[in-house]
């Protein structure tokens, strides 16, 4: 059996390793278009902080890891897929044939259509290549504008602040983290950032960038101008699906996949940031561009590709974020479910916030600020759909009883020995 995997990010690599275990005799080829050994994008911020070197971002550290497993990692770019022939065309001219194909090409940073986005010093923060360019301009004290205060933007912000750059955040939405935090949480994070010396401008729009001496000048819709040395653009991502246009693979925002991570085309699967798959919370199909989903997708897609029919329960949208020392997390339907109930604890001065969302007596979503202990149980409670019974009312009275509720309600959990 010939397995071909497009994309050498976490989804692709985990799929390759899983295939190797599940089908020791099969041939496994991973095609990645980046020059470095397979790495994790999400480690880039720590590279910028200089906690790690580039090799610290690598997905696997063992010398000859892939070769030892008999996984071929090929540097090239897929340009087209032809399901009829079961081949993939590569930019280098070669063509690969497959029995099973996994599309794990991830996503790329989206750049808004604003004049000047192509100037040197205006960078996205998506690849190691991007990171090198950013690092070259990260002189202590340098002024930098971060466009976009979404999840990725906030992670990058952490790195910028750690390197003592003078940061201004410009976010179009009225609050930070519009898709991961509600108003209360977003406001707290913004206030926290300001307290740490980061200027935060929400409801602000960059209308153009131009070169100004050694630096750059940004114009804002408000008419103001900002002089900086570096602009980092973190305004969103787009799945890498262009090469599939003519393939017949069903596409929406991403590659549509079912509960086995299979596309509409026989033998073709998709995983990770590129895949629009079952959403645990809504039952619909969604892109959850996060590491745990990439890992789960990769593994389950591979099992299915190898013939071990495995049902995927769907991905849970969840994030954890450290914004200048303030840890926040969000899970599932944090914005609430129709007809559901809510438990809230807010300590604005202490930067602590916990919001739980229930449907019937089941936890379906949560937001947390300043909570680092045992946060995983929130995922556990959501994903097992544990019925909380009388605990729901207790949690509405005090959401921090979450650990007690978990220990009481989890069947056969360690709690009960």
């Amino acid at each position, binding site marked *: 059996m010939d397995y071909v995997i497009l994309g050498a990010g*976490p989804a692709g690599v*985990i799929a390759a390793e899983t295939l190797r275990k599940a089908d020791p005799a099969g041939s496994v080829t991973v095609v990645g278009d980046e020059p470095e050994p397979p790495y*994790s994008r*999400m*480690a880039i911020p*720590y590279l910028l902080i200089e*906690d*790690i070197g580039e090799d*610290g*971002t*690598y*997905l696997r*550290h063992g010398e000859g890891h892939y070769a030892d497993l008999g996984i071929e990692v090929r540097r090239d770019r897929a340009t087209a897929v032809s399901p009829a022939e079961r081949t993939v065309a590569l930019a280098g001219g070669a063509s690969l044939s497959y029995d099973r194909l996994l599309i794990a090409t991830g996503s790329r940073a989206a750049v808004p259509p604003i004049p000047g986005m192509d100037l040197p010093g205006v960078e996205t923060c998506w690849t190691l290549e991007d990171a090198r360019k950013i690092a070259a301009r990260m002189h202590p004290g340098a002024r930098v504008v971060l466009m976009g205060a979404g999840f990725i933007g906030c992670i990058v912000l952490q790195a910028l602040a750690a390197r003592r750059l003078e940061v201004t955040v410009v976010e179009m939405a009225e609050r930070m983290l519009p898709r991961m935090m509600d108003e209360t949480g977003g406001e707290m994070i913004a206030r926290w950032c300001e307290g740490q010396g980061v200027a935060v401008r929400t409801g602000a729009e960059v209308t153009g960038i131009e070169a100004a001496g050694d630096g750059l000048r940004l114009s804002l819709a408000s008419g103001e101008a900002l002089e900086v040395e570096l602009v980092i653009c973190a305004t969103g991502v787009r799945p890498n699906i262009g090469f599939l246009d003519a393939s017949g693979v069903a596409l929406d925002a991403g590659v549509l996949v079912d*509960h086995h991570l299979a596309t509409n085309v026989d033998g073709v699967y998709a995983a990770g940031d590129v895949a629009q798959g079952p959403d645990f919370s809504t039952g619909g199909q969604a892109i959850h561009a*996060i*590491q*745990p989903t990439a*890992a*789960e997708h990769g*593994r*389950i897609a591979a*099992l299915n590709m190898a013939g071990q*029919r*495995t*049902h*995927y*329960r769907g*991905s849970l949208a*969840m*994030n*954890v974020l*450290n914004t200048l*020392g303030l*840890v926040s*997390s969000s*899970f599932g339907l944090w914005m609430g479910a129709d007809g559901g109930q809510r438990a809230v604890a807010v300590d604005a001065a202490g930067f602590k916030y916990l919001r739980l969302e229930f449907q019937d007596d089941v936890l379906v979503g949560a937001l947390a600020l300043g909570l*680092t*202990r*045992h*946060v*995983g*149980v*929130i*995922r*556990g409670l959501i*994903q*097992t759909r544990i019925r909380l019974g009388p605990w729901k009312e207790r949690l509405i009275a005090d959401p921090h009883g979450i*650990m*007690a509720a*978990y*220990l*009481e309600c*989890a*069947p*056969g*959990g*360690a*709690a*009960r*020995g």
Partner: protein
Amino acid sequence: MQKSLLIDPAKCTSCLQCEMACSFEHEGVFNPAKSRIKVFEFEHGLRAIPYTCTQCAEAWCMQACPVEAITKNLATGAMEVNEATCVGCKVCTIACPFGTINYNQSTGKVIKCDLCGGDPECAKACPTGAITYVDADWTGYGRMEAWAVKTHAEATAGPGG
């Protein structure tokens, strides 16, 4: 035969000797805030539940780690965090559905139970036998597994699955 921690909350008096033993072993200081095992107390102290990682088969934390900082110790079966590799992204802390891998603000890394390399200090310190280290078969592991499977992102398909 691999061994695992058997916890019997009914015997626990909530003395926290286990938490001190754990933090002392891993941090060189008596400091329950840094213990990998945590005793939860409820109902005016009536119930005390010692709680830590079961080294679950799914190893969610390990799967989710972007930089292979968590690996399985093949001798003990424990998932171990390599501090030098860990970047502190905390993804594992939300991935583990048991909440047993936790961020340590002071080091910027995560901590979890590593079975002390096969000789768990908590079990040795426990004066009541609420924690013992026994052959995995005896720990009611089966029940724990059943619960873990429910958490599982996957479920092997039944008919039509």
